[in-house]
């Protein structure tokens, strides 16, 4: 009886993994196909649509990087008289507020919102909501303090809002400090898989491109209707993605709107960041899984993709679980079907590498990006994958404990930015 249950569970897990693998295989094929086509929407560059925009930059103890992004913001090609930059100094104990104020003195379109120690430190969503109160723009953009955008990024992102169905846009994130060490190099590969292939394919196929919470913007009217950012969710970006879709709007991914980020530099920082992402994503999965399946505003393919996207952080746990079940099943005189699915295990394993892109997806992304040296590092992504198993397992266990005890334990583990990315900027 127990063996039968285990077999059924193993089959279920195998089917789930095949579904994810198939999804990423389709994404990779789509991007490959699109890469061979010439750009048809070249005319989109000629669309002149320049609404007043607000840019929110939440910053908590970011003295090493805040000057870099503010300096860059003053160099954007978007008209300054149509731009409002709001720095939210979220109770920083370093010089972040002072540096931002210095820029605000010289640049009239920069405003600094200071949050005192009592109200600050409750996460990015709370800081964004505080800044949003001062936003006057028709479109509200968010940029993290460690980011460094292209000069014409706003033009590229804003043009998508000419379509009234578009509620939000997302630009591409590229790692700035890639050569720093092995962690930054592996994060780069994950980002390539995620943004060069995954997001682009989801946009091309009319699925659900994810709003990443940075390098993106939303319609102010929509954001007001939605009530701003949900402060009880750790992955406020994923939460907003699904609220946008449930409200009947769409998100566009603008592949050529690039912004450079300072990736985490140590495995410890990687853990803290991914733990937050995993826990937040799982919170969203519990919150939206049934809502998206029931919603009349989503098409069938959006519902399927949305469900897979919501549950993606459970997959490393399922892989671990499938090993735990698979080994005893295999030992107890395996039937033919089990040895075949066991043979499939390496492919499954690599399906969930790092940022949940399989090796072939990362490889094709790196190739299309012309990142020849990065290609050699793909086998090392196994370490990032193995590291994600305890991260996601801990996130799920902590979430389960907080659900059972009804204690909200949404501590926002801030990612430390060293400012080492400045070395890689050529002025």
């Amino acid at each position: 009886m127990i063996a039968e249950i285990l077999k059924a569970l193993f089959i279920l897990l195998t089917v789930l993994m095949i579904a994810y693998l198939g999804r990423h295989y389709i994404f990779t094929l789509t991007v490959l196909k699109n890469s061979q086509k010439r750009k048809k929407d070249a005319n989109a560059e000629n669309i002149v649509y320049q609404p007043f925009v607000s840019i929110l930059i939440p910053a908590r103890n970011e003295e090493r990087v805040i000057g870099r992004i503010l300096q860059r913001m003053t160099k954007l090609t978007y008209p300054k008289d149509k731009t409002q930059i709001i720095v939210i100094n979220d109770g920083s104990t370093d010089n972040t507020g002072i540096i931002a104020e210095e820029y605000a003195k010289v640049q009239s379109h920069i405003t600094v919102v200071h949050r005192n120690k009592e109200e600050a430190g409750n996460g990015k969503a709370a800081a964004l909501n505080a800044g949003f109160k001062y936003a006057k723009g028709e479109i509200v953009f968010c940029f993290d303090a460690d980011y460094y955008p292209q000069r014409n990024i706003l033009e590229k992102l804003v043009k998508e809002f000419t379509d009234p169905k578009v509620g939000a846009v997302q630009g591409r994130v590229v790692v700035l400090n890639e050569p720093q060490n092995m962690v930054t190099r592996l994060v780069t590969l994950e980002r390539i898989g995620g943004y060069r292939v995954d997001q682009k394919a989801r946009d091309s196929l009319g699925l659900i491109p994810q709003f990443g919470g940075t390098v993106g913007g939303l319609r102010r009217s929509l954001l007001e209707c939605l009530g701003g950012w949900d402060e009880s969710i750790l992955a406020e970006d994923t939460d907003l993605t699904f609220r946008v879709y449930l409200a009947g709007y769409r998100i566009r991914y603008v592949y050529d709107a690039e912004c450079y980020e300072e990736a985490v530099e140590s495995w410890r920082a990687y853990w803290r960041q991914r733990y937050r992402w995993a826990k937040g994503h799982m919170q969203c999965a519990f919150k939206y899984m049934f809502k998206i399946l029931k919603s009349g505003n989503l098409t069938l393919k959006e519902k399927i993709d949305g469900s897979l996207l919501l549950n993606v952080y459970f997959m490393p746990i399922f892989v671990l679980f499938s090993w735990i079940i698979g080994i005893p099943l295999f030992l107890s005189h395996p039937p033919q079907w089990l040895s075949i699915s066991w043979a499939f295990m390496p492919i499954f394993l690599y399906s969930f590498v790092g940022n949940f892109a399989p090796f072939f997806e990362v490889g094709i992304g790196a190739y299309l990006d012309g990142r020849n040296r990065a290609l050699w590092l793909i086998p090392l992504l196994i370490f990032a994958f193995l590291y994600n198993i305890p991260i996601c397992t801990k996130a799920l266990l902590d979430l389960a404990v907080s659900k059972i005890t009804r204690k909200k334990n949404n501590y926002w583990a801030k990612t430390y930015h060293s400012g080492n990315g400045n070395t890689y900027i050529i002025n």
Partner: protein
Amino acid sequence: MKRSDYLILSFSITGIIFCILLSYIFINKESTFILAVFNLLFITLTFPLDGKLIYKTCLLLLGNIVGAFLNYFFLLFTFLGIYCLGEFFNIICAILNPFANLVWIVSFWSISLAFLANSKKEGKDKI
């Protein structure tokens, strides 16, 4: 394409079929399955990339040879282990086999892409 290219192409395709057949007859079904998955991924995802068809086919043949040989050596290693350590070693090898295949598939994949990317770059440099 030149006549020599056609010859290399047919030789490579024959070699690939030969590797798959050999793996089925002399190794085990799992190795045939792994080779089939490798071929499917390689053909559908690497062949549409820039680069000469002849290079890609040769790489595919090389991948099949590497895969078949590694699986064959792993089988010999298993037999040796069983002879020295007993039947228990068979179970260990059966569990480790997918991971051994993982290593060569992913490594070969990244090396192949790097080779194709470099050959594309060299081609551009020459122009």
